[in-house]
């Protein structure tokens, strides 16, 4: 079967540490740090979260 099985064991929650530790190699400025996720974005997107985008799709 040409599918990879996804489960929690596949996920490395600390992947971002590698990215931050090597940010110079990725061309990231010194004063920029990797922001994985967080309350701030959820709060900023408050109203957007409850919106439906079903109408944007055309069912075929």
């Amino acid at each position, binding site marked *: 079967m040409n599918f990879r099985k996804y489960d929690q064991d596949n996920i*490395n929650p600390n992947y971002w540490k590698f*990215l931050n530790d090597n940010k110079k190699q990725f061309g990231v400025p010194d004063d920029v740090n*990797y*922001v994985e996720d967080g*309350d701030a974005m959820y709060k*900023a997107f*408050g109203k*957007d979260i409850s919106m439906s985008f079903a109408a944007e799709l055309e069912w075929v």
Partner: protein
Amino acid sequence: MKYLLLGFAVLTLSFCLPVDATPFFNSKLGYNLSYKAYSGYEKIDWYFPEQTARMYYSLWQGVGDDIKDKSVPIIIWLQGGPGAASQFGCFNEVGPLYIHPDGKLQENGYSWSNRGHLVCVDQPVGVGFSYNRGKPVTDTYEASLHFTNFLHNFLSEWNFLENPLYISGESYAGHYIPSFARFLMANVSLGINLRGVMIGDGYLDPVNQMNFYDSMTYTAGISSLSAREQTTSVQNQALLNLFSGRYQ
């Protein structure tokens, strides 16, 4: 000798990296790929002319594909959240390399870069390595404006405008992708060759989706009656949180 030197100069200039693009996964990161990978920043200059915000991407050249071949698909990968950075999916799901907890890298045989050039974009600005020194983005509409700007700059700089473009993603990308696609379809003058979108476990219609997990899983035969009751309780709480503004 003069002709030989001229030929060398032409070869060198035939593929120039865009400004702010960095080749990576060379020996400095302790891993040698058999193909090229790059990362970089794009300006969002229609909205941030002072460059107070820029969008970060990683580009994984399609395995066996020529970077100049216009028939190679460009596959954009977008994480959800809102606010989840796409490098998560890149290094845990769809990209060619996994990062192990010990910091070692391992190849993913199922990488989507086997099907074209894979581009993982940290968006909206303010997540991942994309930065925003102004006020935060607050909705999908604003994110759509910025993403369209990003895409136009990125595809132009890499000379990918003619390549078939597919936008993919998961979860909250079910909000982003339909809106992004609509923006591109409404702005054909940008010359972007959008050919399709792919959405996995899309957070497309929150209220209706959340309200039916219990009956959907039960009628599909993948949850018991007691599990269904438990799901009903959780989804009711989720809806309550949604309507009360508790979004995290």
